[in-house]
Structure formats: C-alpha cells, structure tokens
C-alpha cells in the first residue's frame, strides 16, 4: 500500500502547482503557437539566462566575484549595532505591495539578512506587513534566520505581524508603532507609494536611524530627503546579493552587470548607425510587441 510520506505529499503538490502554471500558460497561447515577432525577447532571455548561469557556476566554484561597496548596506549592520547598544528594536517594513511584486521579493530577501543580524545580537525586530502572503513569507525567512544562527527558541511568530490591508490604515499603525516603541533603526525596503514620506518623516521625528530602498522613482526623492541612507533602484535588488554573497544571487548580479554593458554597447552602436542613416533595420531588432 502506498504510504503518504512528507516528500511524496510535497512532490504531489508541486506537480499540482506546475499543472496550474501550465494551464495558465496554455490559456495565454495565441493561435500561432510561436510568436516570431518576439524572437528578440527570446534571444535576450536566453543570453541573459546563460550569462547568469555561467556566473553562478563560477561563484559556486569559488571564483572571486567582486561587487563594489554599496554604502547604504553597510549602514544596516551599523543601525542594528546602534539598536543593540540602545536596547531598542529594529523596525523593518517590507514595502506595501503583495508578494507578487519583485520589490517585495527583494525586500523579503534583505529581511532574512537583517533578521540574522538582529538574532545574533538578540536585538528585538518588528516587521509590520500589509498582506497575508507577505506575512507568511516574512515569517518563513525570519524563522529560518533564527534557526541559522542557532536561536530557534528565541523566534516569535509575532515578529512579523499583519497590520492592516488598507494603505493608510497600515501607515497610521506603523507611525503609531514608531512613536510608541521608538525603534533605534527603521529599515524600509520594497515598494512604497504615497506613504513613503509619512513613514520616513515620523521615523525622523522619533530619532531613529533610517535606511530606505525602493525602485519607485517617484518615491525615492522623499526617502533621500528624510532617511540617512537610501538604496536607489537596482541597488535594492543588488542588496540581497551583496549582503549574503550567495553564489546564486551573486551570479544574478554579475549577469545583470554584463547585460548592462551589452545594452550600453548596443545603444552606442544604434546611435552611430542612426547618425549615419543606416540604423533602421538594427533598431527594429529592439521593437517590443
């Protein structure tokens, strides 16, 4: 008789998940199964993936992959150190978007590293979240961080807590937490909207050291004005690789860097060809459909 073991159950559920994914993908397939007009995207993704896989492989083999210093990230340890000395908590806000937003994923990854540092120094950590899925993901990474530093008994589920689903209800509650618990350090990472300045100004008034990171250009000026350190745009995505030095993330970061060089070369080539009046067909290669 078939025994329902943990791996078997997991495998079954993974297959179900993949089937769901396949079903969604199939429903999106148009009449012509192969979109030749999107071949440029296929080539770019293939190139991008190859480069990332290569770099990941080199990182795993122990090859030294240099990543320049990102000042805002060094401040994370400094901020946690300050909180430890003051005996006050660290507040981490992983943005206001759902888990299906890439900035939230980056924020959750950074949360893992921050949780590790706070767990090491026994510094209290508070993580208010807006969505149940972010709550689940946040609890997973924080628990994992506590396990990795050998302090699983110190882990408390309420470190990551659901606050409110409405944007400004969430903001009002987090502002209240800042004024009442007076965290020594506030770390805002992820997607923020109109509440960015409300949060950062309150944190500033509460006297906390503040580090922010977002890829939203319309909110970055507010963080730059009100926070001590700000990670801009891609620095947010680079942060997790920089902090963890995990081969997979480092490979991704180095791969992206190489792709930036490729894009710069392509832009300059395109500009020169267009200047000499022979760049139309070259430019059409980059047409998005």
């Amino acid at each position, binding site marked *: 008789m078939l025994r329902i073991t*943990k791996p078997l159950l*997991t495998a079954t*559920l993974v297959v*179900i*998940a993949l089937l769901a*994914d396949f079903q969604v993908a199939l429903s999106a397939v148009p009449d012509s199964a192969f979109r030749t007009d*999107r071949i*440029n*995207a296929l080539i*770019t*993704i293939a190139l991008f993936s190859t480069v990332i896989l290569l770099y990941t492989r080199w990182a795993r083999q122990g090859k030294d*992959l240099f990543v*320049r*210093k*990102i000042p805002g990230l060094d401040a994370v340890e400094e901020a946690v150190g300050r909180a430890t000395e003051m005996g006050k908590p660290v507040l981490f806000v992983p943005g206001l978007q759902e*888990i*299906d937003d*890439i900035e939230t*994923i980056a924020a959750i990854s950074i949360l893992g590293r921050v949780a590790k540092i706070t767990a090491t120094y026994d510094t209290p950590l508070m993580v208010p979240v807006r969505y*149940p*899925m972010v709550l*689940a*993901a946040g609890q*997973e990474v924080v628990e994992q961080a506590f396990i990795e530093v050998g302090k699983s008994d110190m882990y408390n589920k309420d470190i990551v807590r659901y*606050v*409110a*689903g*409405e944007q400004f*209800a*969430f903001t*009002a*509650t987090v*502002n*209240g937490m800042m*004024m*009442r618990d007076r965290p020594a350090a506030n770390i805002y990472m992820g997607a923020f909207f109109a509440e960015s*300045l409300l949060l950062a100004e309150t944190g500033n008034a509460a006297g906390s050291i503040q580090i922010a990171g977002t890829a939203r*250009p*319309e909110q970055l*000026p*507010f963080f*730059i*004005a009100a926070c001590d350190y700000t990670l*801009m*745009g891609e620095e947010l995505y680079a942060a997790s690789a920089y902090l963890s030095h995990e081969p997979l993330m480092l490979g991704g*970061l180095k791969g992206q*860097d190489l792709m930036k060089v490729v*894009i*710069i070369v392509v*832009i300059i080539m*395109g*500009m020169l060809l*267009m*200047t000499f*009046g022979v*760049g139309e067909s070259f*430019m059409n290669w*980059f*047409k*998005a459909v």
Partner: protein
Amino acid sequence: MVASGLFEVWIGAFFTLAIFSFLYKDNPFYKFAEHIFAGLSAGYYIGLIWKSVIIQQLWIPITNKGEWSLIIPGLLGMLMFARFFRKFSYISRISLAFVMGNTAGIFLVSQLHGLVLPQTQSTMLSLTGDGFVETLFALIVVIGVVSTLIYFYFSKEHTGVLGVTAKVGIWFIMISFGAHFGFTVMGRISLLIGRVYFLYNDWILGTLAMFD
C-alpha cells in the same frame, strides 16, 4: 443636508482631525482613530476578498460555468491554511514558492518587453537631427541613459573614467528626482486642499446651514 448625512460628516471630520492631531504628538485621539482605521480595513478586506475573489472568481465560475481547472488555484490558496498546523506548515511553502517563482518569471518578460527593449530602442537617436536643439536633446538622452546605467554597474569600483561617468549619472538621477519631487508635492497639496475643503464646506458650513 439631512441630519443622518450631517452625522456622517461629523464622524468624518472627527477622524480627520484625530489623524491630523498626530502632527502635534501621539495622543489618545490618534490612537483611537488608528485602531478604528486598522480594524475597519481588516474587516472590509475580508468582505471584499470573500465576494470579489472567493465567490466571483472561484465559486461562481466552478459551479455555474464548470471551470473545474480553478480548483487548482483554490487548492493552492487552501494550502496557506496549513500554517495553522505546526506539523504541516511546510506545505504552505508550495503556494508561496509558486507565487514567487511565477512573479520572477513573468516580471522578467514583462520588464524586457515593457521597459528594456523600448528604452534601448528609444535611446538609439540620430545625432544629425532636425536642428541644433534636437541634436542637443538626443545627446542628453544618450549620455543620460548610458551614464545612469554605469552608475548602477556594481562589478567595478567607481574610480577613474568609470567614476566620472557614474557621477554624471547621479546628476541625471538627481535632476529626475527633483522633477518627481515637485510633481508629487503638487499632488499632495491638492489632497490637503480636498481635506481642508471638506472640513470647511461640508462640516462647518454644513453644520451652520442646519441651524439657519
């Protein structure tokens, strides 16, 4: 204005002022408004998700239209409840992994199509445009994009030529932030005007009109 309408306006005005009182300092009125706001939003979202997701997007399509494939996302959602049982909580990771993996994959393609390719194409500008101004603008766009990309290059220290170019990039970034800042502040001021107008027109004038 009828009395019931005025009552709602008074509630709105009370909560507006209670939230504004935070500008002075944290106080019991703010705490009261904060907790009411958070509690209401939680309750509201439960109702909203129940109706617009569970009923409209899952139950009705399955029962009325026979879209049985929707059972799979429904099941993935149900797996999240495994978190309530310590022994089986690991099962909820499947739903999480599904969403996160999908996000990364979909985001890659959408960003490529929506941003990377169009931006690359739009930056390939001819420097022999219709006139001096057009040529100058084209040059500014190309220099801006290239230098900003170099600022976000992490594989080398920003020294020498790379450092100078990155500095040019940060100038472009800061100028764009300045424009964003001004635009957003204007939007916020209009929000404030809306709230002050509500207090003055609906609350004060509305109340006075009741006693005329």
